[in-house]
């Protein structure tokens, strides 16, 4: 194994930081919590384009550092979000939570800069196995169970991905991570695709996301909402650009998330469903595959990481301060948490693609690419989903937490206040970035993989967007009653494995246990009695026949031995005397006969 050049991977900075962090205390740890992600971000900024970190391992040339425009836009936003998430988590006393979050980000960066599938798989699994701790750290029984389900689903996805990689290597002899043949698809292509879209939360492989993210810690969900799905979007951009089926799946995602968001009572689970919806736009963009669509997917991933992080920060701060995240246990909090409201509203306006906010300049690129490719139905359905996005994230979340009927218990109301300074600072910076991206388009557009020939601020686009969003608001206030949250949960695809697991448990507890008991009884009654009879017969046979033969033989051997011993042990004089007597006798016989 030879390292071709010494190249500092940005992930290494975070991994070393994760090791170092638990050893630090007090103010030093707080400083490290900001400095280390900033160092990783600076490292990303100063990466030279090209191929770095090449390692020869067995027959394979592994590439840890493929730096190009596509990897750079994702590397940039991932490390930026790591800084914001770390600031948001400054108040957290348990360094393990921040350390696993950094390992998780390192996994994401490892995938983004991977030049081959083996390195990709290595970091893909690092992401899964580190991120699960962000769920378990909440330490509720539900969180432990949700984390286990999350891990099982991701292990399944990882195995399918690895199978696909192996088949791909066997077929092509190459492990290079690049564009796959999306026209002549083979089993390997489909398996790699399944591995990727499971992490992108494409239905029906999506249920792990709302299940796990709503159960994560307050800071954990801020990290979780940014990395897994967007890393999968990067992988799809790299390998599956132009794959037709992704357009359909993307549109399904966009609407599916919106439908479930109507039914949802938990604010963080609602936001999780909107991740599915928003990632749907990106997946559809990858499926369209044009330069504008890929630019749109990357731009939307960039904007999404920030505004979704901000939304999870806002609702997370409510959970942090009140202990509640359900609409039926909140309401009227504007008096107590006004800044959390303002920041969450900015996140809501950004995700809804309001003019001057980040979503406006990113989401519209994908929809415009859809119209340009004459995928009119898909484009209109994406527009419909954007109305749903504003309905829930821009209106339902702020209204039912900060206004509406006050459902707070006395304790909740007592506890409610704006969160600590570090959480407010992280939200303020993120909110500022959301507005900055929306107002100054070159900042984002210059980072995109292809040259941008798109102007979002046309009178037509602004008018179109404002009409959709403001008339959605009319619908919201007219139909406020049907939108009132209810204390329910909504069944989703996780029902199959949750109830499937219970079915297995029931099978083991009931029929399998009954058969086991019956077999045990049968053995006791029939098998054991027969065994006793045969045992007695064996004992008799052994005692009488076997022992008789053996003992008789032994007795014979002993007698013969005795006799032989007797012969051998007579006194020497007696033997000599006997021999002499025989000799004298023989001599006398000879003399008498010869005379």
């Amino acid at each position, binding site marked *: 194994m030879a390292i071709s050049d010494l190249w500092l991977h940005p992930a290494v900075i975070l991994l070393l930081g994760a090791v170092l962090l638990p050893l630090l205390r007090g103010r030093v740890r707080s400083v490290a919590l900001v400095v280390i992600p900033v160092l990783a971000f600076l490292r990303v900024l100063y990466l030279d384009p090209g191929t770095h970190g090449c390692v020869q391992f067995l027959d394979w040339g592994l590439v840890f550092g493929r730096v190009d425009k596509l990897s750079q836009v994702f590397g940039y936003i991932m490390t930026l979000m790591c800084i914001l998430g770390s600031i948001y988590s400054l108040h957290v006393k348990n360094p393990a939570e921040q350390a696993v979050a950094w390992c998780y980000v390192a996994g994401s960066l490892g995938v983004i800069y991977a030049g081959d599938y083996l390195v990709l798989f290595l970091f893909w699994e690092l992401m899964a196995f580190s991120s699960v701790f962000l769920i378990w750290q909440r330490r509720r029984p539900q969180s432990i169970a949700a984390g286990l389900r999350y891990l099982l689903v991701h292990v399944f996805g990882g195995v399918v991905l690895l199978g696909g990689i192996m088949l791909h290597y066997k077929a092509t002899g190459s492990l290079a991570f690049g564009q796959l043949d999306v026209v002549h698809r083979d089993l390997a292509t489909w398996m790699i695709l399944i591995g990727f879209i499971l992490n992108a939360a494409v239905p029906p492989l999506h249920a792990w996301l709302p299940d796990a993210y709503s159960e994560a810690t307050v800071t954990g969900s801020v990290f979780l909402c940014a990395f897994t799905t967007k890393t999968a979007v990067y992988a799809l951009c790299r390998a599956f650009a132009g794959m037709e089926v992704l357009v359909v799946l993307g549109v399904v995602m966009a609407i599916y998330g919106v439908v479930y968001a109507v039914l949802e009572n938990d604010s963080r689970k609602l936001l999780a469903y909107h991740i599915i919806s928003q990632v749907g736009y990106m997946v559809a963009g990858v499926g369209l595959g044009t330069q504008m669509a890929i630019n749109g997917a990357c731009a939307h991933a960039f904007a999404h990481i920030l505004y979704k992080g901000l939304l999870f920060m806002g609702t997370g701060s409510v959970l942090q301060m009140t202990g509640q995240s359900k609409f039926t246990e909140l309401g009227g909090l504007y008096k107590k948490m*006004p800044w959390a409201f303002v920041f969450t509203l900015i996140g809501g306006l950004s995700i809804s693609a309001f003019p001057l906010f980040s979503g406006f300049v990113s989401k519209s690129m994908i929809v415009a690419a859809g119209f340009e490719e004459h995928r009119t139905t898909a484009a209109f359905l994406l527009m419909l989903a954007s109305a749903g996005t504003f*309905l829930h994230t821009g209106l339902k979340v702020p209204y039912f937490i900060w206004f509406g009927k006050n459902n707070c218990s006395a304790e909740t109301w007592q506890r409610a206040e704006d969160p600590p300074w570090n959480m407010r600072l992280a939200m303020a910076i993120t909110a500022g970035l959301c507005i900055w991206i929306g107002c100054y388009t070159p900042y984002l557009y210059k980072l995109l993989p292809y040259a941008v020939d798109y102007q979002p601020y046309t009178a037509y686009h602004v008018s179109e967007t404002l009409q*959709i969003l403001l008339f959605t608001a009319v619908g919201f206030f007219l139909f406020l009653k049907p939108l009132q949250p209810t204390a329910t949960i909504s069944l989703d695809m996780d029902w199959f494995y949750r109830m499937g697991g219970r079915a297995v448990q029931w099978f083991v507890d009931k029929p399998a246990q009954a058969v086991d008991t019956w077999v045990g009884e049968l053995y006791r009654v029939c098998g054991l009695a027969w065994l006793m009879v045969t045992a007695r017969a064996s004992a008799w046979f052994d005692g009488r026949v076997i022992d008789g033969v053996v003992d008789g033989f032994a007795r014979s051997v002993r007698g013969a031995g005795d006799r032989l011993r007797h012969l051998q042990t007579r006194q020497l004089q007696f033997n000599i005397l006997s021999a002499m007597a025989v000799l004298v006798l023989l001599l006398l016989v000879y003399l008498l006969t010869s005379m």
Partner: protein
Amino acid sequence: MKLVALIEFLQRHLKVLVRLCWLVLALLVVGDWLWVDKEPAHTEPEHWFGFWSAFGFVACVVIIFFSKWYGHRGIMKREDYYGDK
């Protein structure tokens, strides 16, 4: 706090605020019809008067009622359905 005072000021003048909102909506629809260049439109319906306004409202209504209908087909369950709350 000024932010809370601002919100409460708006709440006290809710009727005026609502009328202002209706006015903005009307101006938006009329302004779109009179002054906005429809050249970037990709389909014929986009040229219709108030198309995107109607689209936004209908989309909102469809999403609310379809989701509720879907939810009441056995999807919405008690919070302790899975045995945890």
